Each structure stands twice: as C-alpha cells, then as structure tokens.
C-alpha cells in the first residue's frame, strides 16, 4: 500500500521536478490510460484484440472534431469522447464475444482497419492522412489554458489517470471483476455455474472502449491534433506489446509497461528508427521465448526469493 502511494506521489512530483519533459510525460500518462483499458479486457477477461485503437481513435476524433467545430470545453469534450467510444464498443462487442480466439482476433483487427479506412476516406471530415488540424481548446475549468510546455496537460492527464485507475481497481476487485477472471480461465465452466458469459463480456468490452475513448480524447485535447495513426493497427499492436511487457492482469503492469516502452521508444527511435524496430522485434521474440510474465512478474519473483 505504501509503495502504491509512493508511486502516485512520484508521478505527481514529476510535474514539479521535470518541467522539460511534461509533454512526453503527459503522452505517457495518456497511453497508460489506454493500456489500462486493454488490461481490463485482455488481462482480466482474456480477450485478445488487435483493434483496440479503434476506440482510442474514435475518442480522439470526437473530442477533436468537437473542438474544431467550436466546442472547446475540455471536460464535456472528454465525456463525449467516452460516450461515442462506449457506443461503438457496445456495438462491436456483440461480434467480439462470439466465436473463438482466431475469429475474434480477425474481427477486432477488421474493425480497426474498417475504421481506419473510413477515417481515410472521410478526409473532408477527419483530415485523412494529414490529420485533424485546428483543434483549439478552451480553458480547463475556465481557468487553466493548455500551454505549450504541457503543464496543464500533465496535470489534467494525471488526474484522469488516477481516477480511471481507481475505477478499474474497484471494478477488478468486485464480484464482476472476479467473474471476468473466471471467464478468462474457463468460459464453459462459467456458463455451467449460471453466468451469462456474453453479457458480462459485453459490459467489460464497453467499459474498456469508453476508457480507451477517454484516452484518445485526452490526446486530442492536449496535443491539439488528431493523427490518423491513432486508429491504426500499429497503435493496437504497440499497445499490446506495452501491456504484455509490464504484465497483464495487474493494472500497474499497464502503467509500468507503457512508461518503459515509451521512454525506450523516445530515446531509441529518435536515434535510428530502423534499429528501434529491429530490436523491438528481437526483444519481442526473446520475450515470448524466454521471459514469461512481464516486468511486474519478474519483480514479484525477485521479491519472493
């Protein structure tokens, strides 16, 4: 417990201690929210998805488009992003909860690609490959403007991350959360003890989509831009890597994996993007073949010795 408090205090302290890194910092916090949403359905409910970025992107475009068309109030924009993503998640969930692993993988991938293509085609609305420009945000609470140094962005993202984390912690500790783990372990047995498996998964998937939408909306608001890659397969794949790197099913794994990956990416990809991609691939292969469990499980194992 004390370790947890220290963790969050440290995250908050970064606002004071690293004023030069707040833009990267808030980006990390935002992707951590995205990763947490994936942990809910992958780490806890066991659904492998390659299309989660669809909801991230939907949230981003919703918040972005609202701002472009005059509605720059951040909090309501964020709520709208969550709502749109939730509706999409709810609709998509009916496809995702049926079928086995492979079909599900394809469906999630397909939905992501579908949305990417749609955003591309509807360039007159979304800006297509060039991205959505002109996202001008109003002041947060009418007081805090979004500055270039990222101070407002970091604080804003930090609070949202903390709130999302607390929500997910409550959910995963609840009977519903236990049921999700049961579904991950053995969906057939869950049905045999009376659990309406699909209904639970629909609920989880919708919640995860909403949170991903919040993350996307945050990104749009804090960077005042929406790139089409926010919907892309690359983003879904990278998110998967971040989550697995940190350790699934632990919530903190999502945050730590994101931080480690993004810092590494920021440092290494800048030097030589081809090197980064190669060693990332190599790391993945090595990770799967050798290192089971992710960062948090290594820490756990070391602590037990």
């Amino acid at each position, binding site marked *: 417990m004390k370790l947890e408090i220290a963790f969050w205090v440290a995250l908050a302290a970064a606002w004071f201690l690293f004023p030069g890194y707040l833009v990267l910092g808030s980006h990390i916090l935002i992707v951590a929210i995205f990763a947490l949403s994936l942990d809910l359905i*992958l780490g806890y409910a066991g659904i*492998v998805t*390659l299309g989660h970025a669809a909801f991230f992107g939907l949230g981003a475009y919703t918040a972005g488009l609202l701002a472009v068309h005059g509605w720059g109030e951040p909090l309501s924009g964020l709520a709208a992003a969550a709502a749109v993503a939730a509706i999409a998640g709810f609709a998509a969930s009916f*496809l995702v909860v*049926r*079928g*086995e*692993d*492979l*079909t599900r*993988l*394809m*469906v999630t*991938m*397909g*939905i992501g*690609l*579908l949305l990417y*293509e*749609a955003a591309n*085609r509807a360039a007159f609305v979304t800006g297509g490959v060039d991205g959505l420009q002109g996202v001008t945000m109003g002041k947060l609470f009418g007081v805090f403007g979004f500055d270039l140094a990222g101070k407002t962005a970091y604080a804003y993202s930090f609070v949202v991350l903390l709130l999302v984390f607390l929500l997910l912690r409550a959910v995963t500790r609840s009977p519903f959360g236990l049921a999700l783990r049961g579904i991950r372990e053995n969906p057939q047995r869950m049905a045999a003890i009376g659990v309406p498996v699909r209904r639970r998964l629909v609920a989880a998937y919708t919640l995860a989509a909403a949170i991903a939408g919040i993350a996307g909306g945050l990104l749009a608001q804090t960077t005042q831009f929406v790139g089409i890659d926010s919907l892309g*397969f*690359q983003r879904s*794949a990278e998110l*998967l*890597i971040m989550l*697995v790197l940190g350790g699934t099913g632990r919530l903190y794994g999502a945050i730590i994996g994101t931080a480690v990956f993004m810092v590494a990416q920021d440092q290494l990809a800048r030097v030589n993007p*081809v*090197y980064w*991609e*190669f060693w*990332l*691939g*190599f*790391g*993945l*292969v090595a*990770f*799967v*073949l050798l290192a089971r469990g992710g960062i948090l499980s290594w820490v756990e194992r070391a602590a037990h010795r």
Partner: protein
Amino acid sequence: MFGVLFDGIAYGSLLFIVSLGLSVTMGLMNFVNLAHGAFAMAGGYVAVVAMTRLGIPFLAALPLAFVATALAGAILERTLYRRLYGASHLDQVLFSIGLTFMAIAGATWIFGPGQQPVRLPEFLRGQWNVAGVDIGVYRLFLIVTVFALTGLLALLVERTRFGARVRASVDDARVARGTGIDVDRVFSITFALGSGLAGLGGALGIDVLGLDPTFPFKFMVFFLLVVVVGGAGNVAGTLAAALILGVLDVAGKYYVPQVGAFVIYAAMVLLLIAFPAGVFGRRR
C-alpha cells in the same frame, strides 16, 4: 465487367498462393503466424536481388525465391516456431509480430523504404486482345501459373504418401501420431513448403501488389482474411475465399472507388458474424 472479373481472379490467385501456407499452418498446428506476410516479402526481395544483382532472368528468379524462402521457413520452424506450438495465441501473435518487425527493419536497412521496381520480361508485358477484351498478359500468366501450381499441389496431396500423411495430420493430429505418422516432420515440411509458396507469391506479386518494407503489415490482413473466411486447413475453401475476395476487392475499387478497401473489410466483418467458423468451416 469481364476485365474486372479477370483482374479479380488474377489478384485472387495471388492471394491464394500466398495464403495457402498460412491456412495449413493454422489448420494443422493451430498456430497464428502473423509473420507469414514477411515470408512473402522475403521471396519478393530474393527475386529482386536475383534479377538486379545476379542478372538472373525473371522466370528463373521465381523458383529461386521459392527455394530460398522455403529454406528460411524450415530453419525458423526448427529453431523457433517449434517451441511455441502449445503456447497461447497471444504469445504466438506477439512472437510473429516480433519476427515481422525484424523482417521489416531488415528490409528497410538493406533495400531502403521505397518501392522495388521490377522489369518483367518482354513476353509477359502488355496486353492481348481476346474476343474484343483487353487482357493483361502478366495477369494471365499469374492465373495460369497458380492454376498449374494448384494442380501440382493437388497431385501431391492426393496421390503421394506424403500428401496422405498431411491430410491425416490436418484431420486429426493426435490420431495421426497414433498411427505412427511423424507429425512433427510432416509439419516442418509443410511449413517450409507453405513459406516457400508465400515467397513465390511475393515474387510473382511484385508487379501487381508492389514491394516495399511495409508489405507484411499492408497485406497480412488479406491473407488472414482468406484463411479465416475459407476455413483454416481447408484448401478448397481457401481457394474459393481467395478468388471471391480478390474479385470483390477489385470490383469494389473499380465500381465504388471512393469507398475503396472499405468493402473488403466490411465484407470480412459481416462474413465473420455470419460464419464464425469460416464460410467453409474448419478442416472440411
């Protein structure tokens, strides 16, 4: 309309020859190999190197692409893939994505990020006019080649002992092992063959699909699509799915260009809703 149909079938045959290996891998070993597109890409680059650096003519470069990629597949299967047959699909996805990243980085490093131009031999260029319709010679060549290959493969599968072992293993690996078939060896060989075919498809497809380091991620979706719709391990289903999807994609881009690839993805999602186990079902 015939032109669209023809182009669609040409595209579909290309999809088929590449996807076949993936279908067997998924059907036989239940392994999700997202790196399959990278094998196709590798074959393409082998052909390019053969033609530009070694001066080998196009028609000879094709079997070379096949052999080189088959070899690569065999080695990778023995050393790496084999260890993950029992692993979760998530692990397999991560592993194969990792391999793909490595392949893409390698390709970018060696060949640069641009498209590889290919100079087709004279007799494969241009168009013939058949019954009033213009037919691309190369596309005709594609269809004929794939057709011939499919026939060869069918012979292999139906008439040889090896083919019988493959069929038995796809049908039920456990039972096949019980009758003394070395399923692991069957699989190594089929994996190598499948990768080789992918490489051949990649080389054949340079003119139609293009070749650059983003090839794997660009086209992996289509290969997966073909396999999932056609049913993993179901060869006839894969062929049908490939042809249908090829025609649908070309027709979509021709008749409703503003919608483009959207048609394919939408069709896929709809098909998967209706047939969660693939349109033609899994393994017959």
